[in-house]
């Protein structure tokens, strides 16, 4: 799901608030496992809906998309494009690591698999694989907490993760985790060759009514596409919405 990390950030922030508001004042040195545990634990949110805009910029032109998303837990989510007209009615369904899309122009549901997973969603810097890949990083990576550094004028933990096997999409991740909110403000994603292929930044972190922090803006840059970036801004977020079972089914995908 496109906003998986966004929710990760939000739930991590919630966990931070609930567990220890003292992070900012007296930062203790956490273990990598505890940081990754926080990620995984806090992904298990209840339900939510959001409205977002996605700006996809390239040296040639800039396009803007608006969409609504629904999510339940870490493994179920949907996206529906509202605009532009060309994309309106295009829907995505993610269940675990599987993903389908409904294409209104051909009235067809297609499973996204194989090489298609590596393509950017709507030509953006976010690949389908980014959206479906598991965030169970403890299983996939060996981690080292390198230390603390300042990012965007705030203290961050610097965590370096190295993939345990070569079939992981990103062989290495460098993550700067906000000491206070535990939001991964900045990520650098590396290929097996050592080439940095993407950066993934989360910003505009605001406290929500229920006390959790939430990054309302994400910026993803595919370093292999010169001059391109994708910015996703959450314009409306509702947590704890009631969602029918059918929302996360192929039937919903087809009928809307």
């Amino acid at each position, binding site marked *: 799901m496109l906003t998986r990390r966004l929710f990760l950030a939000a739930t991590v922030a919630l966990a931070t608030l609930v567990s220890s508001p003292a992070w900012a004042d007296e930062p203790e040195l956490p273990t990598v496992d505890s940081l990754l545990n926080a990620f995984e634990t806090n992904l298990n949110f209840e339900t939510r809906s959001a409205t977002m805009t996605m700006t*996809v910029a*390239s040296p*040639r*032109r800039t*396009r803007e998309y608006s969409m609504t998303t629904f999510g339940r837990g870490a493994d179920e989510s949907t996206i529906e494009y509202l605009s532009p007209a*060309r994309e309106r009615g295009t829907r995505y369904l993610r269940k675990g690591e599987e993903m389908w*899309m409904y*294409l209104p*122009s*051909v*009235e*067809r*549901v*297609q*499973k*996204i*698999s*194989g090489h*298609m997973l590596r*393509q*950017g*969603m*709507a*030509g*953006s810097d976010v690949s389908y694989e980014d959206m479906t890949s598991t965030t169970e990083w403890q299983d996939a990576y060996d981690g080292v907490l390198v230390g603390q550094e300042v990012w965007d004028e705030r203290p961050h933990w610097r965590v370096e993760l190295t993939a345990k096997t070569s079939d992981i999409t990103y062989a290495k991740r460098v993550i700067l985790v906000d000491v206070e909110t535990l939001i991964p403000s900045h990520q650098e994603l590396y290929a097996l060759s050592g080439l940095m292929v993407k950066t993934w930044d989360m910003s505009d972190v605001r406290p929500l009514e229920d006390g959790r922090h939430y990054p309302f803006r994400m910026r993803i840059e595919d370093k292999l596409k010169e001059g391109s970036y994708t910015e996703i801004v959450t314009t409306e977020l509702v947590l704890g919405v009631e969602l029918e079972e059918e929302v996360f089914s192929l039937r919903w995908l087809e009928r809307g």
Partner: protein
Amino acid sequence: MWIFKLALRNVRRNGRRTALTAATVIIGVALFTVASAFLVGVFENIYADSTALIGHVRVVDPDFLEREQLNPLYEYVPDAQAIADDIEQNVPGSHAYPIIKSGMAVSVDDTIGDVFAITTGSTDAWMRDRGTLEDKLVAGGWPDWDAGEMLVGQRIAQMAGLEVGSQIVLFGQTQDGAISPVGGTIAGIVYAGNPMVDKQVFMSLATMQYAADIDDGALEVLIYGDDVDNAEALADQISGLASVTDLVVEPWTQRSPFDSMVGITAAMQAVIGLILVFITALAIWNTMTMSVLERTSEIGVMRAMGLGRAQAVLMFVAEAVVIAVIGGVIGMALGSLLSWPLVHWGYNIGSDVLDDMDVGEMAMSAQLYAKLTPDMLFKGFFVGLTMAIAGSFIPSLRAASIRPVDAMKGGH
């Protein structure tokens, strides 16, 4: 003149040797004719079929040219139809068509499949007049392009299990790289015997423009003149138009792989000719040397009677030329006869071979035909003459070096 009469008499004197020499020439000329006919036929078919699909000249964006291997849809020619119209109006005898080609995945069920097709979107006129797809229909009929109907190559139809009337969904990309689906109905199946047609899906330009999200644009504007061999002159004319100022005008002869292939035909013909001349000349040299040895005494007498060295050389060369003329004519006839089945029925290398080959923009058919022209026959005849002169020259020099006294003594 008397030298030629003497040469003719010598040709008739030893029929067996003459027949042997002539047979060498006949085989050489016939082999050259068959090899040339097949070579020229195959290459000319490739050029003709390819240029029908890729145009004699094309107009593209310079950045597209740089990254053509990646088929960058964003490097398109804007207002392509307007440019095509401008070219047709200002370059007499030219016909121009906007076209977009792009790879797409053919969906077989609810999963984006592994069957890939090159999809071509262009005008109805291009499909009919240049692609000659109407002639290649093996099932169904001509599409109503505006209704989203399409033509599909037979190979793709087989791989994706498509029939006339089947609904087809193709997944391509927009110029920004987003998945872009296109749906349609198969109106007809075409077969040309080459992957440039048989592994393609053909749709309207508007459908392709929508799929690639490039309004009014095209990746290429293809231009056709009266004669494919005048492509470079046509390109020069088009280059002078204001509408193509910022674009690249490229004749097919400068496009890969044709830029390197055009000279190959002539070079291969030359190599075949040289090899045959060498081998046949050796055989002629052998028989002519025997002839000189047998007639040493006679040559001595003639030299004593005033036959000059040059005349002696001329006599033997003339004898070889007479044999070469006879052998050449028969060789041409034999070569034509042997080429005939290849010209009319061709030779099929099997479509499986082409499936495994990356033929790129080459429209290479599995059925290969030879092409026999008068020009080729004359070349064969000339090769025969060259064989004879080359083969007889050294023995002739040997004959000319015979001293009359030595010859009449029985040695030389």
